[in-house]
C-alpha cells in the first residue's frame, strides 16, 4: 500500500509541477493540498483525516499567485508530498503545515532550476525546426521537459515518500517544539506573499476603498469569502457604472 501511494503521489507531484496537462495546473496544481488530502484519505481508508489535513495545509496556499511566471509559494510539492508524508506519519494537521511549508520552500527553489534546464531544449527545437521536422519540435515541447521533471521531482519525491515518510513519524515525535513553532510561524507568514502579489497586480489608488471593505468585512464582521465576493460583485457593478460615465 505504501508503495502504491508513494508511486501515485510522486507522479501527481511531477505532473502538476511541470504543468502536464496545462489546464490541470489550476486544479491539481493550485489546489494540490486539498485534493491530495482527499485522495490519500481514500487510499488510507480515513477520508475525514485526509480532509482535515488537506484543508489545513491548503489554507496556507489559498492566496498563492503566479504572475508573469513568478510564483509566491509552492502548493504542488507542499501538497502532493507534504500532505502525503504527513498523513503517512500520522501527524497532527498543525505539524503537517510545518512539513508542507518546508517542502513548499524547497519546491519554489527547484522551479528556477527546472526553467534553466528546460532552456537546453530550445536550442534542440531550433535544430529540428531547421529541418522542418514538426514531430521533433513537438518532442522538445512535450516529452523532453518530462525528463527534467522526472529527475527533479519524481525521483526525490518517490524516495522521500517511500523511504522518508516512515522515518518522518519518528523524527516528528522527537522534534524540538521550538523548531516546530518557528517553522509553523514561517507557514503563517508565507500566505502574505501571494496576497501581496495580487495586490500589486490589481492596485490602483482609486481601488483602495475595496481592500478596506474586504478586510473590515472579514476582520471585524467575520464574513467568509463567499459573502464578501457577493458584496464585491455589487460594488464592482457600481464602480463600473460610475467610471464608464467618466471615460465616455
Amino acid at each position: 500500500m505504501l508503495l502504491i501511494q508513494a508511486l501515485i503521489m510522486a507522479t501527481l507531484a511531477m505532473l502538476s509541477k511541470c504543468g502536464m496537462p496545462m489546464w490541470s495546473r489550476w486544479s491539481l496544481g493550485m489546489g494540490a493540498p486539498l485534493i491530495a488530502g482527499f485522495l490519500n484519505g481514500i487510499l488510507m481508508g480515513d477520508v475525514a483525516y485526509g480532509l482535515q489535513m488537506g484543508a489545513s495545509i491548503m489554507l496556507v496556499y489559498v492566496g498563492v499567485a503566479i504572475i508573469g511566471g513568478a510564483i509566491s509559494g509552492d502548493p504542488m510539492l507542499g501538497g502532493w508530498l507534504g500532505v502525503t508524508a504527513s498523513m503517512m506519519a500520522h501527524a497532527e494537521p498543525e505539524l503537517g503545515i510545518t512539513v508542507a511549508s518546508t517542502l513548499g520552500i524547497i519546491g519554489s527553489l527547484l522551479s528556477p532550476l527546472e526553467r534553466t534546464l528546460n532552456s537546453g531544449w530550445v536550442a534542440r527545437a531550433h535544430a529540428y525546426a531547421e529541418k522542418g521536422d514538426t514531430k521533433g519540435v513537438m518532442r522538445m515541447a512535450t516529452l523532453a521537459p518530462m525528463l527534467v521533471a522526472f529527475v527533479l521531482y519524481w525521483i526525490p519525491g518517490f524516495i522521500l515518500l517511500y523511504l522518508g515518510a516512515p522515518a518522518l513519524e519518528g523524527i516528528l515525535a522527537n522534534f524540538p517544539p521550538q523548531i516546530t513553532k518557528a517553522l509553523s510561524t514561517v507557514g503563517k507568514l508565507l500566505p502574505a506573499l501571494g496576497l501581496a502579489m495580487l495586490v500589486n497586480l490589481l492596485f490602483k489608488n482609486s481601488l483602495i476603498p475595496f481592500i478596506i471593505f474586504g478586510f473590515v468585512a472579514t476582520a471585524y464582521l467575520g464574513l467568509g469569502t463567499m459573502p464578501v465576493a457577493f458584496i464585491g460583485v455589487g460594488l464592482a457593478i457600481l464602480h463600473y457604472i460610475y467610471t464608464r460615465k467618466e471615460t465616455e
Partner: protein
Amino acid sequence: MEKNLDQKTLKKSWLNWVSFGQQCYNYEIMQGLGFASSMIPIINKLYPDDAEARKAALERHLTYYNTENNWGAAVAGIVASMEEEKANGANITDGSINSIKAALSGPLAGIGDTVTQSLVKTCLLGICCDMALKGNALGPILFFVLMSAYCLGLSKYVFDQGYKSGKTSVTRLLAGGKMTAVTEALGALGLMVVGSMIASNVNIATPLVLNLGQTSVSLQGILDAICPKLLSLVTVFAVYRLVNKGVKPIKIIGILFVVGIIGGLLGILG
C-alpha cells in the same frame, strides 16, 4: 487551391495549447515552445509537402512568448487564422504575426491573472476549503470539477472567438475604453476578496505579554481591541512594498523564512 483549416485541426491546436503550453517553460523563450506546439497541427495541415514553409513557420513561433494560460488561448486562435491567410497568399509578414502575439499577450495576461487568480481560483478555493474543513468530501471534488471546467471551457471559447473574428475583435475590445472600465471593476472585486483573505488567511499574532507591575497584559489583546488581524495587514503591505519595488518572490520567501524562524524562536511572532 485554397487552404482551409478544418474543425479537427483547430481543436487539436487548442488542445495542444491547453495541454502543452506551459510544459517546456524556460527562461529563454518562456512559453515559446508551448505556443509552437499549438501551431504545429496548423503548420502540418497548411504545409504538408513544403519543408521550407514548415521550417519558416516553426522558426517564426520559436520565439519569446508569455501570457496567462486560459485567456491567452485567444492569441493562438487569432494567429491560427493569420497563418491560414498567410498560406493562402495574404501579405502577412513574420513581423506582423510576432507583433500581434507581443501586443496581445500582455493585456490578456492582465485580464487573465485578475479573473483566473484573484477571482475564480481564490473564491473557489476559499469555499471548497471551508467545506473540507467541515468534513465535507464534496469540497475537493467540486474544486477539481469547477476549476477544470473554467480552464477548458473558457480557453476553448476564446480560442474559437479569436479564430473566427481574427485580430480585429480582440484589438477592438482591448482598445475601447469599455474594457478598461471592466478590468478596473474586476480589479475592485479582486481587491475586495484579497482584503477579506488578508484577514482570513494570514494568521500572524504575537504571543508577547507585557508585565506591568502586578498585572500582565497580552499585547495581541491590545492589538485586537484596536484592529483584529492588524499584524496580518501590516505584513501583507510590507511584502507588497517589496514586490512593488521589484524584489524577486524567491528572495521574499527567503526573507519571510528568516523573519518567521527568528520571530518564532524569540517568541515575538506565532
